[in-house]
């Protein structure tokens, strides 16, 4: 295989010492990239001239809707995430301590579940419009105007309020890690601290957060299906199922993928700038500007809104549905499913974290550009819609299974599903550990190697303790994402195996919201627990610079 050949040749020519780890790194990358290659191969099959039909009819609409949604969610989540992060980092106002961590909470909510909940709540038959009709005396839908929740605007609203924490977390990290002296200089010159210092310094963090949001938006299926918005992702399924053409569907998926690779490129760029700005800087403790009077309450209220709309309100509505259906739930079964979900997510997270930190370690010491690109590419599974990636995984596992003569059979096994999660969520811990590495001064590694420690030894003794907090934060994000994951689990799971997501889906798919409410509620609870943890970790992460 030519991919194998490249590193060997280049490495010997340039006389770079190839660590034993590099072989493992290459192997991991090839295995993780397998499903994506499988999709490429699927895309090569004939598509019966469907592109002509698609470009003439629906493709323009798909692209326009996708861009509209994409830009809308980015603007909304950037606005919410950045402004809240700025206020929380620099000002003192009532409820600041509470909001500082609580603003992360919407992360625990899968967007599609929030979409279900808001539809129930805001549509004609829901309580809000009922109240409007009751108090104002309207009788039918035609008597008054109320915005339609099942629309692009509605989708932007739902996704923006659920996804902004990605931006918030990263922007907060960025703001608290910016050198105070620069802000002091800005105030001496009477310049705007936010626009002249905070924003430019924090840009790489914000871009990284937005890239995550963007990928989530492009791979979302649940919300756009429920709102019937004809985006590229929905189009993929119309082509696949409606036209019975998996090849044309894969082709559309790959185009979206290229779009996302561009985003990833921005993220990597941003990360490399981050490295530059963070070494050898002196960080003073942050003193919050004390606000008083109406101004402080206005800021409290402002920061409370995203928390309220992205978390508190939907959880209350969901919980009221749980109470409505209390008699009908099969608690024993749901308990088992909960246990399943936690075990699966824990094992997967552990494996993903180990692999990703291992590769990040290797890639940190790798000076070969081609190998580096290769390592980074293995993290691209995040950029595909889950269902399409699942198809890639299925094809790839089928290939491996036939290759091994079915001694080990991956397809439909617990291991298979763990593998699929690894392909999809590898990007999260990989990115986090790589940036964790960039904070470690190079001379520590040199010292360790001078003292005669092997690379593995160094990794355990020096690196791990130093990057602990970023690895832990990544582990928690990965765990939450796995608990929320639906489409891959649905297709790849073993017989009789349910997770909270799949269990919720069988009811939600049929718009049986009451039956779906309890497992959906548990998904959010499952995500909450580690978020409490991540916050403790993140606190250490920000404030570690004080001393």
């Amino acid at each position, binding site marked *: 295989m030519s991919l194998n050949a490249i590193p060997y040749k280049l490495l010997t020519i340039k006389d770079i010492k190839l660590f034993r780890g590099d072989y493992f790194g290459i192997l991991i990358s090839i295995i993780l990239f397998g499903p994506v290659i499988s999709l490429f191969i699927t895309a090569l099959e004939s598509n019966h001239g469907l592109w002509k039909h698609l470009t003439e009819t629906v493709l323009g609409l798909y692209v326009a809707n996708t861009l509209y949604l994409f830009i809308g969610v980015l603007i909304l989540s950037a606005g919410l995430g950045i402004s809240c992060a700025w206020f929380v980092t620099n000002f003192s106002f009532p409820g600041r301590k509470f909001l500082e961590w609580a603003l992360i909470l919407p992360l625990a909510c899968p967007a599609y579940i929030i979409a279900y909940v808001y539809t129930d709540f805001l549509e004609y038959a829901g309580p809000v419009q009922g109240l409007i009709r009751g108090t104002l005396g309207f009788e039918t839908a035609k008597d008054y105007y109320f915005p339609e929740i*099942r629309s692009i605007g509605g989708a932007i609203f739902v996704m923006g309020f659920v996804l902004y924490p990605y931006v918030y977390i990263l922007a907060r990290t960025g703001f608290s890690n910016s050198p105070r002296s620069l802000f002091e200089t800005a105030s001496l010159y009477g310049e705007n601290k936010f626009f002249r210092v905070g924003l430019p310094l924090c840009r790489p963090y914000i871009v990284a957060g937005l890239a995550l949001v963007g990928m989530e938006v492009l791979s979302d299926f649940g919300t756009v299906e429920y709102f019937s918005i004809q985006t590229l992702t929905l189009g993929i399924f*119309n082509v696949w199922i409606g036209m019975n053409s998996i090849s044309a569907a894969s082709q559309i998926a790959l185009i979206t993928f290229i779009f996302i690779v561009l985003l990833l490129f921005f993220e990597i760029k941003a990360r490399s700038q981050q490295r530059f700005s963070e070494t050898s800087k002196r960080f003073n403790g942050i003193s919050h500007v004390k606000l008083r009077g109406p101004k402080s309450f206005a800021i409290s209220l402002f920061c409370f809104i995203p928390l309220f709309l992205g978390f508190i309100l939907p959880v209350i509505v969901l919980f009221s549905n749980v109470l409505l259906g209390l008699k009908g739930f099969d608690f024993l079964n749901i308990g088992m499913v909960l246990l399943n979900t936690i075990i699966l997510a824990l094992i997967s997270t552990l494996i993903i974290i180990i692999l990703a930190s291992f590769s990040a370690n290797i890639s940190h010491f790798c000076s070969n550009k081609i190998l580096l690109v290769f390592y980074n590419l293995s993290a691209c599974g995040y950029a595909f819609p889950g269902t399409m990636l699942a198809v890639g995984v299925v094809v790839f596992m089928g290939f491996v299974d036939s290759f091994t003569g079915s001694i080990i059979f991956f397809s439909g096994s617990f291991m298979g599903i763990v593998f699929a999660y690894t392909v999809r969520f590898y990007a999260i811990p990989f990115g986090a550990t790589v940036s964790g590495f960039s904070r470690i001064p190079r001379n520590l590694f040199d010292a360790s190697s001078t003292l005669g420690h092997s690379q593995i030894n160094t990794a355990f003794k020096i690196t791990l303790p130093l990057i602990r907090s970023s690895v832990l934060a990544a582990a928690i994000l990965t765990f939450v994402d796995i608990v929320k994951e639906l489409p891959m689990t*649905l297709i790849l799971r073993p017989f009789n195996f349910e997770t909270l997501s799949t269990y919720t889906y069988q009811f939600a798919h049929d718009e049986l919201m009451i039956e779906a409410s309890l497992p959906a509620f548990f998904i959010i609870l499952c995500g909450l627990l580690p978020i409490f943890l991540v916050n403790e970790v993140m606190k250490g992460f920000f404030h570690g610079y004080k001393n």
Partner: protein
Amino acid sequence: MRKYILSIFVIFMMLSGQLYSGELNIYSHRQPFLINPFLNKFTEETGIKTNVVYATKGLAQRLKAEGKNSPADLILTVDIGRLYVYDDLDLLAEIKSNTLDQNIPSHLKSSDNKWFALSKRSRIIVVSDERIGAGEIFKIEDLADPKWKGKICSRPGSHVYNRALMASLILALGEERAEEWASNFVSNLARRPQGNDRAQVKAIYEGQCDIAIINNYYYGKLKYSEDPTQRKWASTVRLIFPNQGEGDRGAHINISGGGVAKHSKNKDLAISLLEFLSKESSQKMYGEINFEYPVNPMVETTDELKSWGSFRADNVNISDIAKITQTAQKIIDRTGW
């Protein structure tokens, strides 16, 4: 180090594919809560244990990729289009069963005995009982009449049920007239196509529109819903079985069905489940659990379904509908349904 690698390998082996010999493995496009009552009864009667994976899409690709090694024995789907995909990818075994031949009429199975319909559902028109008078709508074709402008709600055309309906119109009217129908129908819509069939009835109740097309069983699900508001939605609509006029083709029906996986190691067991599903007691269960019509001509429709009115079904060969789904989807794309 070697010890570690060995133990990791052993754990790998333990976690990888399990063998289910003597058990029946099912890939299902029907939700577990709908299929489980049947399977439990089957296990009770025969002692054969069943294992299920449910997904709405992707299972055919999984089966195909698994090839000869696949543990799957039986495929159960809703909608003819999905069944046909399995047939098209050559994933189904040709089976011989006198019981199935006897219980399932020939227009509701594949000509080479690869798949079989197990229940029927009719795509019917529902109208607001209050706002639409009797005798105003008789056929699906009537919904293209400009007098219904702004009065119709619909699920997106790309949904399998609407796509199959579109295909049935192509067979009945020809491609050109079918497209004309679709584009007039779309211009009559009160709102952008959205929601599932349940949501259309709700929209009529809410007064957003007066007419919609749904699968008949949704009416039953709403009528007997545990949620009192859903029962209210059902009480405001009236059912119209379309195309019942003399000489007309009858109401479009779709099916749920199944087939035996080509590489099944338990083909006999798989066939016995299909036979079980086609026999009288199971056929009645389809009506009782999910308000679907029996395919077995010897089995009577449940009283509840009878009370909704009797109807004549469009007896076009169901596989002809599946063959032209692509043409149907193209019309749906062009007309923006």
